[in-house]
Protein backbone atom coordinates (compact mmCIF):
# COMPACT_ATOMS: atom_id res chain seq x y z
CA UNK A 1 0.00 0.00 0.00
CA UNK A 2 1.41 3.36 -0.91
CA UNK A 3 -1.57 5.71 -0.51
CA UNK A 4 -1.89 6.73 3.13
CA UNK A 5 -5.21 7.01 4.91
CA UNK A 6 -5.89 10.59 5.96
CA UNK A 7 -8.33 9.82 8.77
CA UNK A 8 -6.82 9.47 12.22
CA UNK A 9 -9.59 7.46 13.80
CA UNK A 10 -12.43 5.26 12.66
CA UNK A 11 -15.60 7.18 11.88
CA UNK A 12 -19.00 5.53 12.32
CA UNK A 13 -21.70 7.26 10.27
CA UNK A 14 -24.72 5.94 12.17
CA UNK A 15 -27.12 8.69 11.06
CA UNK A 16 -27.26 7.63 7.46
CA UNK A 17 -28.03 4.64 5.26
CA UNK A 18 -25.50 2.32 3.69
CA UNK A 19 -23.70 3.73 0.65
CA UNK A 20 -25.29 3.28 -2.73
CA UNK A 21 -23.12 1.83 -5.49
CA UNK A 22 -22.80 5.31 -6.88
CA UNK A 23 -21.71 6.63 -3.51
CA UNK A 24 -19.12 3.87 -3.21
CA UNK A 25 -17.76 4.85 -6.61
CA UNK A 26 -17.64 8.48 -5.51
CA UNK A 27 -15.73 7.58 -2.35
CA UNK A 28 -13.17 5.64 -4.32
CA UNK A 29 -12.79 8.52 -6.76
CA UNK A 30 -12.23 10.91 -3.85
CA UNK A 31 -9.47 8.70 -2.44
CA UNK A 32 -7.50 8.51 -5.68
CA UNK A 33 -4.71 11.12 -5.49
CA UNK A 34 -4.51 13.79 -8.18
CA UNK A 35 -2.29 12.80 -11.07
CA UNK A 36 -2.60 9.07 -10.47
CA UNK A 37 -2.49 6.48 -13.23
CA UNK A 38 -5.50 4.24 -12.68
CA UNK A 39 -7.00 1.08 -14.12
CA UNK A 40 -10.69 0.49 -13.49
CA UNK A 41 -11.84 -3.11 -13.75
CA UNK A 42 -14.77 -4.29 -15.79
CA UNK A 43 -18.25 -3.79 -14.29
CA UNK A 44 -18.92 -1.64 -11.23
CA UNK A 45 -15.35 -0.30 -10.94
CA UNK A 46 -15.80 1.35 -14.34
CA UNK A 47 -18.31 3.74 -12.78
CA UNK A 48 -15.57 5.30 -10.63
CA UNK A 49 -14.61 7.25 -13.74
CA UNK A 50 -17.87 9.18 -13.59
CA UNK A 51 -16.80 10.68 -10.28
CA UNK A 52 -13.24 11.68 -11.15
CA UNK A 53 -12.76 15.43 -11.32
CA UNK A 54 -11.52 16.44 -14.77
CA UNK A 55 -9.06 18.78 -13.07
CA UNK A 56 -7.53 15.99 -10.97
CA UNK A 57 -5.22 14.91 -13.74
CA UNK A 58 -6.04 11.27 -13.12
CA UNK A 59 -5.09 9.26 -16.22
CA UNK A 60 -7.02 6.10 -17.02
CA UNK A 61 -5.25 3.00 -18.33
CA UNK A 62 -7.04 0.25 -20.18
CA UNK A 63 -5.12 -3.00 -20.45
CA UNK A 64 -6.04 -3.45 -24.09
CA UNK A 65 -3.46 -0.80 -24.85
CA UNK A 66 -4.20 2.81 -23.96
CA UNK A 67 -3.44 5.56 -21.50
CA UNK A 68 -5.66 8.65 -21.46
CA UNK A 69 -8.95 6.85 -21.98
CA UNK A 70 -12.00 9.12 -22.01
CA UNK A 71 -15.68 8.44 -21.25
CA UNK A 72 -17.84 5.92 -23.09
CA UNK A 73 -18.52 6.79 -26.73
CA UNK A 74 -22.02 7.39 -28.01
CA UNK A 75 -23.58 7.85 -31.42
CA UNK A 76 -21.17 9.04 -34.04
CA UNK A 77 -18.25 8.85 -31.61
CA UNK A 78 -18.40 5.05 -31.52
CA UNK A 79 -15.30 3.58 -33.17
CA UNK A 80 -15.01 -0.22 -33.21
CA UNK A 81 -11.22 0.17 -32.99
CA UNK A 82 -11.45 2.03 -29.67
CA UNK A 83 -12.86 0.11 -26.71
CA UNK A 84 -12.11 -0.43 -23.06
CA UNK A 85 -11.26 -3.80 -21.52
CA UNK A 86 -14.96 -4.59 -21.30
CA UNK A 87 -15.20 -4.11 -25.09
CA UNK A 88 -17.34 -1.01 -24.57
CA UNK A 89 -16.65 1.80 -27.08
CA UNK A 90 -14.80 4.65 -25.40
CA UNK A 91 -13.16 7.94 -26.36
CA UNK A 92 -9.64 9.35 -26.39
CA UNK A 93 -8.49 12.35 -24.35
CA UNK A 94 -5.74 14.81 -25.34
CA UNK A 95 -2.39 13.37 -24.27
CA UNK A 96 -3.51 9.79 -24.86
CA UNK A 97 -1.16 7.08 -26.13
CA UNK A 98 -1.61 3.62 -27.60
CA UNK A 99 0.63 0.56 -27.13
CA UNK A 100 0.43 -3.15 -27.72
CA UNK A 101 -0.62 -5.80 -25.23
CA UNK A 102 2.87 -6.84 -24.11
CA UNK A 103 3.78 -3.22 -23.41
CA UNK A 104 0.45 -2.62 -21.69
CA UNK A 105 0.87 -5.52 -19.29
CA UNK A 106 4.56 -4.69 -18.78
CA UNK A 107 3.35 -1.29 -17.60
CA UNK A 108 0.99 -2.99 -15.18
CA UNK A 109 3.24 -5.82 -13.99
CA UNK A 110 6.16 -3.42 -13.62
CA UNK A 111 4.30 -1.49 -10.92
CA UNK A 112 3.80 1.73 -12.84
CA UNK A 113 0.06 2.08 -12.21
CA UNK A 114 -0.84 3.81 -8.98
CA UNK A 115 -4.28 2.35 -8.41
CA UNK A 116 -6.38 -0.47 -9.75
CA UNK A 117 -10.02 -0.87 -8.75
CA UNK A 118 -11.45 -4.39 -8.99
CA UNK A 119 -14.55 -6.29 -8.07
CA UNK A 120 -14.27 -9.39 -5.89
CA UNK A 121 -16.01 -12.56 -4.78
CA UNK A 122 -13.87 -12.69 -1.64
CA UNK A 123 -11.01 -10.79 -0.03
CA UNK A 124 -9.03 -12.31 2.81
CA UNK A 125 -8.13 -10.28 5.87
CA UNK A 126 -4.54 -10.27 4.64
CA UNK A 127 -5.48 -8.95 1.22
CA UNK A 128 -5.67 -12.13 -0.84
CA UNK A 129 -8.10 -11.68 -3.70
CA UNK A 130 -10.56 -14.11 -5.30
CA UNK A 131 -12.44 -12.59 -8.18
CA UNK A 132 -12.12 -14.79 -11.25
CA UNK A 133 -13.78 -18.10 -10.53
CA UNK A 134 -16.41 -19.30 -8.13
CA UNK A 135 -14.96 -22.77 -8.19
CA UNK A 136 -18.23 -24.16 -9.51
CA UNK A 137 -17.46 -27.37 -11.37
CA UNK A 138 -19.42 -26.54 -14.48
CA UNK A 139 -18.09 -22.98 -14.79
CA UNK A 140 -15.84 -22.24 -17.74
CA UNK A 141 -12.69 -20.72 -16.29
CA UNK A 142 -11.88 -17.25 -17.63
CA UNK A 143 -9.29 -15.05 -16.00
CA UNK A 144 -8.70 -12.22 -18.49
CA UNK A 145 -6.39 -9.62 -16.99
CA UNK A 146 -7.54 -10.13 -13.40
CA UNK A 147 -4.36 -11.80 -12.14
CA UNK A 148 -2.13 -9.29 -13.87
CA UNK A 149 -4.13 -6.38 -12.46
CA UNK A 150 -4.12 -7.89 -8.98
CA UNK A 151 -0.34 -8.01 -8.70
CA UNK A 152 0.43 -4.98 -10.82
CA UNK A 153 -0.80 -1.75 -9.34
CA UNK A 154 0.81 -0.10 -6.31
CA UNK A 155 -2.61 -0.05 -4.63
CA UNK A 156 -5.42 -2.45 -5.41
CA UNK A 157 -8.81 -1.24 -4.22
CA UNK A 158 -11.71 -3.66 -4.18
CA UNK A 159 -15.26 -2.41 -4.77
CA UNK A 160 -17.89 -4.91 -3.73
CA UNK A 161 -20.88 -5.59 -1.53
CA UNK A 162 -19.69 -6.59 1.93
CA UNK A 163 -22.07 -9.52 2.29
CA UNK A 164 -22.90 -12.28 -0.14
CA UNK A 165 -26.45 -13.28 -1.00
CA UNK A 166 -26.34 -15.93 1.72
CA UNK A 167 -25.51 -13.23 4.27
CA UNK A 168 -21.91 -14.28 4.81
CA UNK A 169 -19.13 -11.72 4.80
CA UNK A 170 -17.04 -11.56 1.65
CA UNK A 171 -14.06 -10.47 3.74
CA UNK A 172 -12.90 -13.80 5.09
CA UNK A 173 -10.08 -15.32 7.15
CA UNK A 174 -9.01 -17.32 4.11
CA UNK A 175 -10.49 -17.29 0.62
CA UNK A 176 -12.38 -20.44 -0.27
CA UNK A 177 -12.76 -19.52 -3.94
CA UNK A 178 -9.77 -19.96 -6.27
CA UNK A 179 -7.30 -17.12 -5.75
CA UNK A 180 -6.55 -14.31 -8.17
CA UNK A 181 -3.58 -13.00 -6.22
CA UNK A 182 -1.88 -13.19 -2.85
CA UNK A 183 -1.72 -10.24 -0.42
CA UNK A 184 -2.48 -7.77 -3.17
CA UNK A 185 -5.55 -5.82 -1.97
CA UNK A 186 -4.96 -2.76 0.21
CA UNK A 187 -8.51 -1.42 0.62
CA UNK A 188 -12.06 -2.66 0.32
CA UNK A 189 -14.91 -0.27 -0.42
CA UNK A 190 -18.36 -1.61 0.42
CA UNK A 191 -21.82 -0.23 1.12
CA UNK A 192 -21.36 -0.67 4.88
CA UNK A 193 -17.73 0.20 5.40
CA UNK A 194 -14.37 1.17 3.99
CA UNK A 195 -11.74 -1.20 5.27
CA UNK A 196 -8.00 -1.65 5.06
CA UNK A 197 -6.70 -5.19 4.66
CA UNK A 198 -3.16 -6.47 4.83
CA UNK A 199 -0.45 -7.89 7.06
CA UNK A 200 -2.08 -6.56 10.23
CA UNK A 201 -5.55 -7.78 9.29
CA UNK A 202 -8.69 -5.71 8.80
CA UNK A 203 -8.93 -2.10 9.94
CA UNK A 204 -12.19 -0.17 9.65
CA UNK A 205 -11.77 3.34 8.26
CA UNK A 206 -15.44 4.34 8.13
CA UNK A 207 -18.82 2.72 8.52
CA UNK A 208 -22.13 3.78 6.98
CA UNK A 209 -25.42 3.14 8.78
CA UNK A 210 -23.88 0.48 10.97
CA UNK A 211 -21.45 0.45 13.88
CA UNK A 212 -18.13 -1.37 13.99
CA UNK A 213 -19.52 -3.57 16.73
CA UNK A 214 -22.55 -4.50 14.65
CA UNK A 215 -20.29 -5.29 11.70
CA UNK A 216 -17.99 -7.35 13.89
CA UNK A 217 -20.96 -9.46 14.96
CA UNK A 218 -21.61 -10.39 11.33
CA UNK A 219 -18.00 -11.13 10.31
CA UNK A 220 -15.56 -13.96 10.95
CA UNK A 221 -12.50 -11.74 10.87
CA UNK A 222 -11.34 -9.45 13.63
CA UNK A 223 -11.97 -5.74 12.97
CA UNK A 224 -9.52 -3.15 14.27
CA UNK A 225 -10.15 0.54 14.60
CA UNK A 226 -7.89 3.28 13.30
CA UNK A 227 -6.05 4.85 16.17
CA UNK A 228 -4.93 8.44 16.00
Amino acid at each position, binding site marked *: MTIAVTAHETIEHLDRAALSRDEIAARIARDIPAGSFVNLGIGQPTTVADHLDAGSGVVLHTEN*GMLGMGPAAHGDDVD*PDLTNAG*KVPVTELPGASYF*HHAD*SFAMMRGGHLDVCVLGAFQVSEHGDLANWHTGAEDA*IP*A*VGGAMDLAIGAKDVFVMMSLFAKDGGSKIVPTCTYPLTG*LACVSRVYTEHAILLVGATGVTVVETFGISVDELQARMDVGLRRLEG
Partner: protein
Amino acid sequence: MTLVVDTALEAVAGIEDGATVLIGGFGMAGMPVALIDALIEQGAGDLEIVSNNAGNGDTGLAALLAAGRVRKMVCSFPRQSDSYVFDELYRSGRIELEVVPQGNLAERMRAAGAGIGAFFCPTGVGTPLAEGKEQRTIDGRDYVLELPIKGDVALIGAHAADPAGNLVYRKTARNFGPVMATAATTTIVQVSSLVELGGLDPESVVTPGIYVDRVVRVGQEDS
Protein backbone atom coordinates in the same frame (compact mmCIF):
# COMPACT_ATOMS: atom_id res chain seq x y z
CA MET B 1 10.40 -10.97 -47.21
CA THR B 2 6.84 -9.76 -47.47
CA LEU B 3 4.48 -10.86 -50.21
CA VAL B 4 1.43 -8.76 -50.96
CA VAL B 5 -1.29 -11.12 -52.18
CA ASP B 6 -4.66 -10.45 -53.75
CA THR B 7 -7.00 -12.63 -51.75
CA ALA B 8 -7.33 -13.84 -48.18
CA LEU B 9 -7.36 -17.40 -49.48
CA GLU B 10 -3.94 -16.95 -51.07
CA ALA B 11 -2.77 -15.37 -47.84
CA VAL B 12 -3.62 -18.43 -45.73
CA ALA B 13 -2.32 -20.99 -48.23
CA GLY B 14 -0.21 -23.76 -46.76
CA ILE B 15 -1.46 -23.71 -43.16
CA GLU B 16 -1.21 -27.33 -42.10
CA ASP B 17 -3.33 -29.64 -40.01
CA GLY B 18 -2.15 -29.53 -36.42
CA ALA B 19 -0.68 -26.05 -36.68
CA THR B 20 -0.57 -23.61 -33.80
CA VAL B 21 -2.26 -20.44 -35.02
CA LEU B 22 -2.05 -17.15 -33.13
CA ILE B 23 -5.11 -15.01 -33.86
CA GLY B 24 -5.07 -11.32 -33.01
CA GLY B 25 -7.85 -9.14 -31.74
CA PHE B 26 -9.46 -8.20 -28.47
CA GLY B 27 -13.15 -8.77 -28.95
CA MET B 28 -13.70 -7.60 -32.51
CA ALA B 29 -11.06 -4.83 -32.43
CA GLY B 30 -8.14 -6.06 -34.50
CA MET B 31 -9.80 -9.40 -35.25
CA PRO B 32 -8.67 -10.66 -38.70
CA VAL B 33 -12.12 -11.86 -39.75
CA ALA B 34 -11.34 -12.20 -43.46
CA LEU B 35 -8.30 -14.37 -42.72
CA ILE B 36 -10.26 -16.59 -40.34
CA ASP B 37 -13.00 -17.01 -42.95
CA ALA B 38 -10.32 -17.93 -45.48
CA LEU B 39 -8.80 -20.41 -43.03
CA ILE B 40 -12.21 -22.09 -42.73
CA GLU B 41 -12.36 -22.33 -46.52
CA GLN B 42 -8.76 -23.48 -46.75
CA GLY B 43 -9.61 -26.46 -44.59
CA ALA B 44 -6.79 -27.00 -42.08
CA GLY B 45 -7.95 -28.80 -38.95
CA ASP B 46 -6.75 -30.14 -35.60
CA LEU B 47 -5.59 -26.62 -34.88
CA GLU B 48 -4.32 -25.14 -31.65
CA ILE B 49 -5.59 -21.57 -31.50
CA VAL B 50 -4.02 -18.90 -29.31
CA SER B 51 -6.22 -15.84 -28.97
CA ASN B 52 -7.45 -13.65 -26.14
CA ASN B 53 -11.05 -14.80 -26.45
CA ALA B 54 -12.76 -17.90 -27.80
CA GLY B 55 -15.09 -16.45 -30.38
CA ASN B 56 -18.14 -14.25 -30.41
CA GLY B 57 -21.50 -15.05 -31.97
CA ASP B 58 -21.37 -17.24 -35.09
CA THR B 59 -18.69 -15.57 -37.20
CA GLY B 60 -14.91 -15.43 -37.29
CA LEU B 61 -13.22 -17.57 -34.65
CA ALA B 62 -16.62 -18.89 -33.51
CA ALA B 63 -17.26 -20.17 -37.04
CA LEU B 64 -13.85 -21.88 -37.09
CA LEU B 65 -14.72 -23.55 -33.80
CA ALA B 66 -18.18 -24.52 -35.07
CA ALA B 67 -16.56 -26.13 -38.12
CA GLY B 68 -14.74 -28.51 -35.77
CA ARG B 69 -11.27 -27.40 -36.81
CA VAL B 70 -9.88 -26.59 -33.38
CA ARG B 71 -8.38 -29.14 -31.02
CA LYS B 72 -7.30 -26.70 -28.33
CA MET B 73 -7.88 -23.10 -27.34
CA VAL B 74 -5.24 -21.14 -25.43
CA CYS B 75 -6.80 -17.90 -24.21
CA SER B 76 -7.34 -15.63 -21.25
CA PHE B 77 -11.09 -15.13 -21.42
CA PRO B 78 -13.15 -17.76 -23.27
CA ARG B 79 -16.39 -16.98 -21.49
CA GLN B 80 -18.32 -14.06 -22.92
CA SER B 81 -21.95 -13.17 -23.31
CA ASP B 82 -21.91 -14.49 -26.87
CA SER B 83 -19.33 -17.28 -26.70
CA TYR B 84 -21.99 -19.99 -26.95
CA VAL B 85 -20.19 -21.91 -29.70
CA PHE B 86 -17.13 -22.40 -27.54
CA ASP B 87 -19.20 -23.00 -24.42
CA GLU B 88 -21.04 -25.88 -26.07
CA LEU B 89 -17.85 -27.49 -27.39
CA TYR B 90 -16.17 -27.16 -24.01
CA ARG B 91 -19.05 -28.49 -21.97
CA SER B 92 -19.38 -31.46 -24.28
CA GLY B 93 -15.67 -32.23 -23.98
CA ARG B 94 -14.91 -31.65 -27.63
CA ILE B 95 -12.23 -29.00 -27.14
CA GLU B 96 -9.25 -28.54 -24.83
CA LEU B 97 -8.79 -25.27 -22.98
CA GLU B 98 -5.69 -23.70 -21.48
CA VAL B 99 -6.49 -20.52 -19.60
CA VAL B 100 -3.57 -18.08 -19.40
CA PRO B 101 -3.62 -14.70 -17.65
CA GLN B 102 -3.88 -12.03 -20.32
CA GLY B 103 -0.53 -10.43 -19.56
CA ASN B 104 1.20 -13.80 -19.48
CA LEU B 105 -0.34 -14.62 -22.84
CA ALA B 106 1.21 -11.46 -24.27
CA GLU B 107 4.54 -11.84 -22.48
CA ARG B 108 4.92 -15.52 -23.37
CA MET B 109 4.44 -14.68 -27.04
CA ARG B 110 6.85 -11.77 -26.69
CA ALA B 111 9.39 -14.22 -25.20
CA ALA B 112 8.95 -16.51 -28.20
CA GLY B 113 9.58 -13.63 -30.57
CA ALA B 114 12.50 -12.27 -28.57
CA GLY B 115 14.43 -15.53 -28.14
CA ILE B 116 13.87 -15.67 -24.36
CA GLY B 117 13.84 -19.28 -23.17
CA ALA B 118 11.63 -18.70 -20.11
CA PHE B 119 10.96 -15.97 -17.57
CA PHE B 120 10.03 -15.60 -13.94
CA CYS B 121 6.70 -13.81 -13.72
CA PRO B 122 4.86 -12.60 -10.60
CA THR B 123 1.40 -13.02 -12.13
CA GLY B 124 -0.65 -15.90 -10.80
CA VAL B 125 1.62 -16.84 -7.89
CA GLY B 126 -0.41 -18.78 -5.35
CA THR B 127 -3.32 -19.32 -7.76
CA PRO B 128 -4.58 -22.47 -9.50
CA LEU B 129 -3.00 -21.26 -12.76
CA ALA B 130 0.46 -21.55 -11.20
CA GLU B 131 -0.03 -25.12 -10.04
CA GLY B 132 2.70 -27.45 -11.24
CA LYS B 133 4.90 -24.60 -12.37
CA GLU B 134 8.35 -23.91 -11.01
CA GLN B 135 8.40 -21.13 -8.43
CA ARG B 136 11.26 -19.02 -7.16
CA THR B 137 11.75 -16.13 -4.77
CA ILE B 138 13.97 -13.43 -6.23
CA ASP B 139 14.91 -10.35 -4.28
CA GLY B 140 12.09 -11.08 -1.82
CA ARG B 141 9.29 -11.49 -4.35
CA ASP B 142 7.72 -14.75 -5.56
CA TYR B 143 7.63 -15.67 -9.23
CA VAL B 144 6.41 -18.47 -11.47
CA LEU B 145 8.45 -19.72 -14.42
CA GLU B 146 6.62 -19.17 -17.71
CA LEU B 147 7.55 -20.62 -21.09
CA PRO B 148 7.28 -19.02 -24.54
CA ILE B 149 4.23 -19.53 -26.74
CA LYS B 150 5.33 -19.83 -30.35
CA GLY B 151 3.03 -20.02 -33.32
CA ASP B 152 3.44 -21.73 -36.65
CA VAL B 153 1.23 -19.02 -38.06
CA ALA B 154 -0.10 -15.68 -36.86
CA LEU B 155 -3.24 -14.16 -38.35
CA ILE B 156 -3.55 -10.51 -37.44
CA GLY B 157 -5.38 -7.38 -38.46
CA ALA B 158 -3.67 -4.03 -38.96
CA HIS B 159 -4.64 -0.66 -40.34
CA ALA B 160 -2.10 -0.06 -43.11
CA ALA B 161 0.91 -1.76 -44.65
CA ASP B 162 3.57 -0.74 -47.13
CA PRO B 163 5.07 -3.20 -49.66
CA ALA B 164 7.92 -3.95 -47.23
CA GLY B 165 5.36 -5.28 -44.77
CA ASN B 166 5.71 -2.44 -42.29
CA LEU B 167 2.50 -2.08 -40.31
CA VAL B 168 0.61 0.55 -38.39
CA TYR B 169 -2.53 -0.09 -36.36
CA ARG B 170 -5.51 1.98 -35.25
CA LYS B 171 -6.17 2.78 -31.57
CA THR B 172 -6.88 -0.21 -29.33
CA ALA B 173 -7.13 -2.51 -32.34
CA ARG B 174 -3.32 -2.70 -32.00
CA ASN B 175 -3.62 -5.03 -28.97
CA PHE B 176 -2.06 -8.47 -29.67
CA GLY B 177 -1.06 -7.89 -33.30
CA PRO B 178 2.49 -6.60 -32.81
CA VAL B 179 3.50 -9.29 -30.35
CA MET B 180 1.91 -12.15 -32.34
CA ALA B 181 3.70 -10.94 -35.46
CA THR B 182 7.03 -11.59 -33.72
CA ALA B 183 6.06 -14.98 -32.30
CA ALA B 184 5.05 -16.94 -35.40
CA THR B 185 7.07 -18.62 -38.11
CA THR B 186 4.68 -17.19 -40.73
CA THR B 187 2.81 -13.95 -40.07
CA ILE B 188 -0.20 -13.18 -42.24
CA VAL B 189 -1.85 -9.77 -42.04
CA GLN B 190 -5.09 -8.29 -43.28
CA VAL B 191 -5.05 -4.54 -43.64
CA SER B 192 -7.59 -1.89 -44.56
CA SER B 193 -5.11 0.08 -46.58
CA LEU B 194 -1.97 -0.44 -48.64
CA VAL B 195 0.38 2.49 -49.11
CA GLU B 196 3.41 2.86 -51.33
CA LEU B 197 6.97 2.30 -50.09
CA GLY B 198 7.89 5.37 -48.09
CA GLY B 199 4.22 6.02 -47.31
CA LEU B 200 4.59 5.18 -43.63
CA ASP B 201 6.55 7.40 -41.25
CA PRO B 202 9.58 5.30 -40.17
CA GLU B 203 9.24 6.75 -36.65
CA SER B 204 5.65 5.47 -36.39
CA VAL B 205 5.96 1.95 -37.79
CA VAL B 206 4.75 -0.40 -35.05
CA THR B 207 5.54 -3.75 -36.68
CA PRO B 208 8.63 -3.69 -38.91
CA GLY B 209 8.29 -5.67 -42.11
CA ILE B 210 10.84 -8.25 -40.97
CA TYR B 211 8.01 -9.85 -38.99
CA VAL B 212 5.49 -9.91 -41.83
CA ASP B 213 5.29 -12.64 -44.48
CA ARG B 214 2.02 -12.01 -46.31
CA VAL B 215 -0.31 -9.05 -46.52
CA VAL B 216 -3.77 -8.83 -48.04
CA ARG B 217 -5.97 -5.80 -48.25
CA VAL B 218 -9.60 -6.44 -47.36
CA GLY B 219 -12.70 -4.42 -46.74
CA GLN B 220 -14.50 -1.55 -48.31
CA GLU B 221 -11.54 -0.22 -50.21
CA ASP B 222 -11.48 -3.44 -52.18
CA SER B 223 -15.01 -3.14 -53.44
